[in-house]
């Protein structure tokens, strides 16, 4: 993990992630003020708008930095070095994912903390921390899995965007049949429920939704583990 933290600092990945989250929250605010013409932005509106930005534009925003963090090791021909220090495809991948997620988690916490302090409103802090973390973890896992399979960053970003657009279209066609592919998508059933919770005094989502999100993330991790299982040789070949 130490190596990955060091690399994320020297490659400025951590700074780019920080800038992305600043942009995400600012966009959440200015969409309300600029497009929706809201004159009095309440914390609930601000949080929900930022959450919408994260779910609707998050994959586009984060795909570059996540793909870069993984694909750079292929383009730099570093895979044999990872083997040298005793890593395998699983430890290589999960350490990178863990570092990206921990850094994102820190920025999400900081962002929510600052906004909550500005409004003196911490009523939905835990829920928002959970939701934002889940959304970002989803992106990290999906883009990470695609990146570990793709030989270069452009292909990784391209495939990630195609995946995202396909999932949005499928959910728009039928959220009952394809809802599981993109649970956070605005066209899905959970989205309006989250809006209702944020506008009410109710501090948490229903247990069904929480369970669904956890199940969804576990499913991505399982799919990811299967993909990695069958990519051991490919991992070395792409790194040579």
């Amino acid at each position, binding site marked *: 993990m130490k190596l990955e933290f060091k690399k994320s600092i020297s490659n400025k990945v951590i700074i780019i992630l920080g800038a992305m989250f600043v942009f995400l929250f600012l966009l959440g605010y200015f969409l309300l003020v600029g497009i929706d013409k809201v004159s009095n932005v309440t914390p609930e509106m601000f949080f929900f708008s930022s959450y919408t930005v994260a779910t609707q534009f998050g994959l586009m925003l984060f795909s570059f930095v996540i793909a870069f963090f993984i694909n750079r090791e292929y383009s*730099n021909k570093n895979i044999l070095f990872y083997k040298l220090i005793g890593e395998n495809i699983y430890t290589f991948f999960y350490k990178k994912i863990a570092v990206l997620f921990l850094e994102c988690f820190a920025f999400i916490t900081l962002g929510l903390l600052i906004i909550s302090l500005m409004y003196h409103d911490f009523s939905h802090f835990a829920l928002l921390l959970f939701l934002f973390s889940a959304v970002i973890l989803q992106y990290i896992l999906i883009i990470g899995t695609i990146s570990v399979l793709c030989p270069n960053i452009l292909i990784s970003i391209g495939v990630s965007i195609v995946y995202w657009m396909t999932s949005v279209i499928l959910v728009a066609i039928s959220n009952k049949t394809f809802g599981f592919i993109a649970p956070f998508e605005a066209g899905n059933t959970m989205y309006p429920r989250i809006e209702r919770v944020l506008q009410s005094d109710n501090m948490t989502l229903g247990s069904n939704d929480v369970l669904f999100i956890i199940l969804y993330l576990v499913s991505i991790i399982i799919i990811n583990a299967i993909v990695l299982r069958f990519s051991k040789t490919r991992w070395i070949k792409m790194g040579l």
Partner: protein
Amino acid sequence: MNIANYTLKVKGKTLLQDTDLHFSSGKINHVVGKNGVGKSQLAKDFLLNNSKRIGRDIRQNVSLISSSSNIPNDVSKDFLLHFLSKKFDAKMIDKIAYLLNLDNIDGKVLIKNLSDGQKQKLKLLSFLLEDKNIIVLDEITNSLDKKTVIEIHGFLNKYIQENPEKIIINITHDLSDLKAIEGDYYIFNHQEIQQYHSVDKLIEVYINE
């Protein structure tokens, strides 16, 4: 190390056909050949086994040091050595670092900002720590300055003297390697790897090929 009837095909092109690979321990086995004959593919095959002729005992006992095996360039020398010292014998690191004269490399500078020769030395140090018995060097002196090339030649001479159990395969098209480091001499010739006992004869074949 002996591999009989070795054939290597990459993307339908036959690079080596029914040739015998015989490399000795305790000396540098130089393999020369012109660009495109398949030198680097041979080097990679020791790990990837595309030929299906490289046994597990060989694959698991090979260190490949080539342009295909880099060290992270987004950390500094100091960080790298400290990191490696947690995984490998610190005495061995000090010894190889001394032989490669790594003291004159600025420890705080990111590796990507070092010269090619300095990067190459750090790469040699890192991959030799694996302490594998078969070491495949693929064009490691390519495009390096003369001083660094001489230092690497000197290092390899000392290293093989101190580690006579190792098989070092030096794949190169830099003929100065052959003169500077004594060993066995092989050439890629008509889809075979042929051994020459005389450096001059091999150079003649290489030039007239």
